[in-house]
Every structure is written in structure tokens, then in C-alpha cells.
């Protein structure tokens, strides 16, 4: 984060030094894009907050810990696709799952679907890619995530 701030400030200063008008034009364009995205973003964040309240971490551990085999993988894939959990929560959570004896395949499918598929962020994705492309991208990512998760389970 600190690196990002530093990098942005340096870029901004260099840009200002070279051409003030061009810099302001860039800032204006950036701000316009941000404002366009804002309503969809706030909507998704509020949905995610409600989702996390209804399905807390403890419940995810219970859901994934109870079943193994095909059923376990199916539950992991479903939860992983829908949930939107930031990496700083999901990786520690995965470690807890492994410690509880959940199989590598189930944990791997949970992590890969979590990372690659975003059902809750679809409204934002629609705005940029249209429904057709966004849905197809998520379907393909879902299949890919399943394959990757199962392969990890086989090789680890």
C-alpha cells in the first residue's frame, strides 16, 4: 500500500512538472470514471457486508468441514464462487480448514473459486463487459477453478 501511494505521488509530480494541463485532464478523466463506478461499487459492498453477516466464517468452516468427497468439493465450489472474501481473511481461513482435517482438494477448490469467480461482483462486471461476456468469463473461470483445485489435490 505504501509503495502504491509513493508510486502514485511520484507519477503525479512528474506529470505535473512536464505538463500541467495534461495532468488536470488526466485527473478529470480518472475522477469521472470513479464517479461512474461508485453506485455499483457501493451496492456490491453493502451486499457483501450483509452476506458476511448471514454467513460468518464459523459457518463456512462448518459447511466445508462436514462433508468430503464430491459433495465437499461441490459445497466448496458453491461457497467459493458466491462469497467475496478478501485474501487477508481467506488464506488464514484455508489454513484453519486444513488444520481441521478438511482435504486439500476441498480447500483448493474453495480458494480457486473464491479467487477466480465473483458472483456478487457480477453487477460491476456487467457494466464494463456486458452480460454476455461477463457471464461467460465467470462460467469459464468456474470450470477452470474446479480443474485447478482438483489438480492441486492430486499433486500435493
Amino acid at each position: 500500500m505504501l509503495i502504491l501511494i509513493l508510486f502514485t505521488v511520484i507519477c503525479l509530480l512528474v506529470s505535473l512538472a512536464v505538463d500541467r494541463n495534461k495532468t488536470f485532464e488526466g485527473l478529470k478523466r480518472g475522477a469521472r470514471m470513479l464517479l461512474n463506478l461508485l453506485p455499483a461499487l457501493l451496492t456490491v459492498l453493502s451486499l457483501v457486508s450483509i452476506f458476511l453477516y448471514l454467513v460468518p466464517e464459523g459457518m463456512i468452516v462448518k459447511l466445508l468441514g462436514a462433508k468430503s468427497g464430491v459433495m465437499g468439493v461441490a459445497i466448496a465450489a458453491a461457497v467459493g464462487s458466491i462469497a467475496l472474501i478478501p485474501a487477508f481473511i481467506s488464506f488464514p481461513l484455508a489454513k484453519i480448514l486444513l488444520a481441521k482435517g478438511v482435504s486439500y482438494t476441498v480447500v483448493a477448490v474453495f480458494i480457486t473459486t473464491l479467487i477466480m469467480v465473483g458472483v456478487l461482483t457480477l453487477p460491476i462486471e456487467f457494466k464494463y463487459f456486458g452480460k454476455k461476456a461477463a457471464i461467460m468469463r465467470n462460467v469459464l473461470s468456474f470450470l477452470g477453478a474446479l480443474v485447478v483445485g482438483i489438480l492441486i489435490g492430486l499433486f500435493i
Partner: protein
Amino acid sequence: MTNKKVLRDYFWVVLFAIFIIGSLSLSFDPGIRIYANFSQFFLEMITFLPLMFLLVGLFDVWIPKEKIEKHIGRESGIGGTLWVILLATLQAGPLYGAFPVAYLLSHKGASVRNIFIYLGVFSAMKIPMLTFEIGFLGLKFTLLRTLFTLPVFIIIGIIMEKYVGRDFKVEAGR
């Protein structure tokens, strides 16, 4: 933008705000906990997104279209894909931060395949995230995941290009 459109765009957000304010003043516990979740995400967003869009805006005015077209456009081949992968792994933040970059790249002439490869690699192979993953799940897990995931995204990129067509453009996100 008309007032009606603003109202429609923010309808759910306003409803949510009323619910939160109501919960806080009435000490309604589920509402308070939902608010705690929300403020955590909001904080992440508000620190990260303005910087992101500032860079995107500067990128937009400074990087000429020809450069992008030449390096990651239709005729760029494997070299272009490598460029996109490098760009995506060096970034950080949630996936919705990658959409505006994808718009910009598309707008400046990047190929459809490379845009989808960029999105995939961004979502799954950012270096800051990988270091975190190694810390919790180990080097072997992380290496295996990265190794299996990369070809998957290249295949997805190729399929998406066939599916939406080479002239597909990412929208500005309104």
C-alpha cells in the same frame, strides 16, 4: 446525468444507508454488525480506489494508443501476452480495481485475448497476494496453483476472444 438516473443508481445505497442509520440509533445488533463489515470494506476501497483511478487517468493522457496497440494489440503474439502477465502480477487490490484498467487497455487497442488474460492473472496471480498465500498455505500449494492456473487463463482468453469476437470493446462502466 439526470436526477432520475442518479436516484435509480443510488436507490439501493440510500436504502442501505437508512437501514444502517436506523440500526445504529436503535442499537439493532445485526445492522451494527453489517455496518462493521461494510466500514471495513469501505476503508479498503476508499484508500485504494482514488489512487488507482488517478493512475488510470494519468495513464490515459500520457500513454499513446500506438504504443499499446503495438505491444499488446492484435498482432502482438506471445510477447504481448507476456507483457500483460507481467503488468497484472505487479498490481495489487481487489478485482473491481482491474476493470477500469481493462477498459483503458481495450480503449487503447489491446487485443481481446490479452484483456481477458490480464483480468485472470490479476485476479489470481498478483505478487503481493502470492507472498501472502505462501505464508499461510506454503510454497508448494502456491506454486502448484500458479502453475495450473496460468494455462487456464490463457485458454480462457483464447475462448473469450472467439466468443465475443475480436472487435469487442470494454465499456466505460456507467
